[in-house]
């Protein structure tokens, strides 16, 4: 019996620390479970395939984000607060044994996950392919849709 190999397609559009995890955790797990996985990185998601991703996070606009102390939004917007919140998130992730984004990304690539950077986004934000990981290829949404159209699961983040 030769079942058709399962395929997972993911579009990653966000470039913040909290949003970097869902596509990569799902991709790495799916790869472990035998899925052929491709991630298309577009818009701010391009940050995930940069050589050194600079990912931040903030509770502003994110009322659902759990915080050690409930700060009024006006205070959350003070200079330096974004960096503090990013640092707190990093600490929390580390204390719970969660891999860093770089490690998780390396794991994905090692497991055969393909990462495709959106050409239009690169053009829009003046990003050179040399700024990206060697393992990442570039493509248009049309090329990506060829894979996505045959995939069993398609997710967008």
């Amino acid at each position, binding site marked *: 019996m030769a079942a058709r190999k399962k395929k997972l397609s993911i579009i990653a559009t966000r470039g913040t620390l909290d949003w970097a995890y869902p596509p990569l955790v799902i991709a790495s797990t799916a790869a472990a479970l035998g899925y052929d996985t491709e991630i298309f990185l577009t818009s701010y998601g391009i940050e995930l395939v940069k050589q050194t991703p600079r990912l931040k996070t903030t509770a502003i606009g994110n009322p659902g984000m759990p915080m050690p102390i409930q700060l009024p939004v006006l205070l959350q917007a003070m200079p330096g607060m974004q960096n503090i919140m990013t640092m707190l998130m990093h600490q929390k992730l580390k204390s719970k*044994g969660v891999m860093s984004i770089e490690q998780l990304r390396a794991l994905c690539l090692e497991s055969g996950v393909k990462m495709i950077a959106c050409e239009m986004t690169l053009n829009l934000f003046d990003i050179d392919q040399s700024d990206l990981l060697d393992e990442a290829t570039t493509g248009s949404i049309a090329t990506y849709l060829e894979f996505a159209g045959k995939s069993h699961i398609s997710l967008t983040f």
Partner: protein
Amino acid sequence: MTEYDHELDASGLNCPLPILRARKSLGKMKPDETLHIIATDPGSVKDFEAFAKQTNNLLLSSTESGGRFNFVMKKT
């Protein structure tokens, strides 16, 4: 206690690391060899059941003792 050819200690690792590491270990094994996995993540029980089912490897045993979960998988 079932005997095994290889062992993987995934203690302290949380989802999805135990199955990712197991996949790596299984990749280096020959068919019919067995892998003993130790994990502390309670989520790993369901993870390994799903892993075995999806990758067509056999989960020979799944036991727990004092917060430690032991799995024996056979590569097919």
